């Protein structure tokens, strides 16, 4: 098992956002976490990446307990978060943003390989290499955020709402790329509001509601589940 979060409780002051949830990801899988606004999706991501500490529960990554580790320490282990919308550095150029992704790395030649890989996946970024990131469109910024995360060579790439605020065609494109990244051998955990895309692309999925996991199953199973269809796919 690559990642296992057990009975995680996360609170903001007196408000508890996650009431003891358990999630696990096997090596090579694409796992998604779906849920409505305020279900605790981003909180789960924060807890996993180490941006916020848990008040109870544990996170084990790659056979090591990382519960008490800071975000930057977890990144070095290969647990990498691509934060939600506009999580790029707006004042830096595209290249500088990608550089930040490789901030903790010293293996120059491998970094260059990863540049090529990112520009291969996102030819758009190559065209805009010198552009200030804050001036790009939402879709381009999302591509940059994913590219930057890839620059830290993740073992597990966690994507927080990659489709947020994007046009349907772009959503399709972003998910195509996510599938491609997974085929290249990176394990993926994706958090999404767009349940249809997420479920149809995932091996397994969890449904999150008000800080609890209410359902889990394979992607196709959940796509066929009547209550999921009603609540998240807009079909009765």
């Amino acid at each position, binding site marked *: 098992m690559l990642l296992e979060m057990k009975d995680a409780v996360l609170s903001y002051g007196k408000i508890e956002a996650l009431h003891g949830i358990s999630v696990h990801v096997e090596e090579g899988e694409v796992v998604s976490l779906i849920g409505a606004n305020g279900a605790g999706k981003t909180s789960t991501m924060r807890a996993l*990446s180490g*941006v916020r500490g848990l008040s109870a529960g544990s996170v084990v990554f790659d056979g090591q307990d990382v519960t008490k580790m800071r*975000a*930057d320490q977890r990144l070095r282990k290969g647990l*990498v978060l691509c934060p939600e919308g506009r999580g790029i550095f*707006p*004042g830096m150029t595209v290249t500088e943003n990608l550089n930040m992704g490789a901030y903790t790395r010293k293996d120059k030649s491998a970094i260059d390989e990863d540049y090529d890989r990112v520009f291969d996946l996102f030819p758009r970024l190559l065209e805009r290499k010198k552009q*200030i990131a*804050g001036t790009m469109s939402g879709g381009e910024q999302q591509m940059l955020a994913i590219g930057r995360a890839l620059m830290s060579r993740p073992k597990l790439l966690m994507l927080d709402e990659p489709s947020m605020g994007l046009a349907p065609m772009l959503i399709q494109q972003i998910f195509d790329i996510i599938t491609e990244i997974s085929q290249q051998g990176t394990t993926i955990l994706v958090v999404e509001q767009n349940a249809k895309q997420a479920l149809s692309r995932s091996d397994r999925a969890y449904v999150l509601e008000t800080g609890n996991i209410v359902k889990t199953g394979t992607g196709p199973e959940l796509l066929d589940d009547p209550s999921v269809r009603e609540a998240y796919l807009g079909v009765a």
Partner: protein
Amino acid sequence: MSQISDSIRGLQIGNRWDRAPKWVRSVGLLLVIAFAFYLPFLNVLPFAYIRTDLNPTGSDWASVLFLIVVYMIAAVGLNVVIGFAGLLDLGYVGFYALGAYSVALFGSPSSPVVEALQSRFGLSDEWAVPFVMCIPIAIAMSLTAGVILGAPTLRLRGDYLAIVTLGFGEIIRITARNLDNVTGGAAGITQVPVPPGPEVDGRSFFNTIDAERWYWLALVILILIVFLASRLEHSRVGRAWLAIREDEDAAAVMGVAGFKFKLWAFAIGASVGGLAGLLFGSKQQYVEPNAFMLNLSFLFVAMVVIGGSGNIVGVLVGAFLLTYLPERFRELQEWRPFAFGLALVLVMVLRPQGLVPSRRRAAEIEDRRHEAEEAAADA
């Protein structure tokens, strides 16, 4: 106002400068520096109108220049904290005061600290720590204070940090005023040492009359500090600061240890502030708590913000304007606070990124505006 700024922007000085060949930039820089060194003797009309001592009540020109450069040093140091790392420090005067008090406490033969050392070790009445040794002491003291203040408080963000630092600035001043048997209390400390140098005309090289020498000394230090700060900005540490300033959480998930780098920014900013304070105290040859009121902190912040937070040239311009203009137009003294407030409001409304903005800052402000609009649209 905006027409003027538009026409200045139309000149694209920044872009032209960046694109100019290296030798043009080197020569340009040397000319600016040479002119700066010549400034105290500037006496050719009409340029001499920039002098502050044209009428008999005016301030001594070289002394004003010295003060401008000392404030420039402080502003460049504060820019590391505010401009590079994005931490609002409203107590910067505390570090400035610590620098000035360090050289006074250890370098003046009449300071209570030195007197205690004299009697403890049976030294003569004239003994004191030499000036050159006071420099590392001053830097170490302000750096330590920066770390002590930063370590518990840098986990706070934004406004909370601003309030804590605000308190720090006041604590330093009030402590200096009340700790009579260490700092001399409200009476302050006299006989603050000056830098060593050959005697000229029977006076020491750095004295109270020949202010231009002080100005040149400060200018050399400023050039050094500006060089170091710009090297730092483009280093690995500088990139970490930039990332933290733009998005602290994103920086953390990219592997930037936020706290460590923020503490660095604080410590570096503090030691530069201490150095500026040391120069000030040494030239005055007298240090007293009322020289370090809170409004000086606000003045430093205003220099950075009006000039262009994050851009070293910008903060130099800001420090120059906010020090020079009040001295040049002394006769309008009672209008000073009004003009100051008006200038701040105008800059914030018309040019929130500062007079000489950093390109990144401008993009960040635009990005935040965008985010706010999206949030408003959601609600």
